[in-house]
């Protein structure tokens, strides 16, 4: 399925508008799902289901939003911050996400801020191109 980035962005926006009940002008590229768009844990699953249907792809558990596994592993988290190992894991698991700013203060409470509209678009684009 050939789909350019603009089309992907538009479809992702529609998914988020329906799943989170937000307005289209709130769904900017930089918007964070939890902070800006008010997503809760069940919404992430709802979003995954809707993305699978919209783009006709399978999204394995933890691939798009891998935070949970990371946070429960003491190798990866110490004193509420990600360790070097944790950061390496994050880079590997979330190649679709820009974590440059996060590295300076890898507080796990800020992990949620990494889930942006842009990260989803990157993920979907990578998935469709790999297909």
């Amino acid at each position, binding site marked *: 399925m050939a789909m350019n980035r603009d089309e992907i962005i538009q479809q992702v926006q529609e998914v988020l508008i329906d*799943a989170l009940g937000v307005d289209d002008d709130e769904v900017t590229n930089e918007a964070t799902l939890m902070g800006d768009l008010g997503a809760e*844990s*069940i919404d992430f699953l*709802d979003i995954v*289901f809707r993305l699978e*249907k919209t783009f006709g792809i399978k999204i394995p*558990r933890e691939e798009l939003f891998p935070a949970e596994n990371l946070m*429960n592993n003491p190798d990866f988290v110490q004193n509420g911050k990600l360790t070097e190992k944790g950061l390496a894991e994050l880079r590997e698991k979330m190649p679709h996400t820009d974590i440059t700013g996060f590295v300076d203060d890898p507080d796990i409470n800020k992990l949620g801020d990494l889930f942006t509209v842009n990260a989803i678009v990157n993920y979907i684009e990578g998935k469709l191109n790999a297909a």
Partner: protein
Amino acid sequence: MRWIWIDKFIEFQSGRRAVAIKNVTLAEEHLHDHFPGFPVMPECLMIEAMAQTSGILVGQAKDFQEKVILAKIKKAVFFDYVKPGDTLKLDTEIDSIAPEAASTSGKITCADKLIAEIDLMFSHIDQNLAGKEFPEENFVFTAGTSVFESLLRDVVSGNAGSGADSEQK
């Protein structure tokens, strides 16, 4: 005791689709207050009926091994009143099901007239919330209980608990 708000299933296709019936009666006390002289079924109780229909479908899909809870009302749109004497048909389908959750979409009709569209999400809570513990008790019920069998009494005879047997031809 379970509070069961649907009367019976008339179709049950394991893991895919279920249709249940709910008869509305003036013997339901709340109808006298909602509203005095104008009894109509509260919309929240239509959502409850759909949540039970869909929740049992989702629970049975995993052989009642998961604790299924209603996690999100994705959509609830109502088109008409429901009054005492009406028979509601609750028709629901599983759109997606994963180890940790399921989503369903459903329609309520009364004599083929569309009453409501209700789409829901259910969480398998043991698979979520990172290791928090919940009581052993299953929130839906377990396979082979008398409640489940009685709800399925009119669906194709045979073993109500196992999906393949109750599938419609």
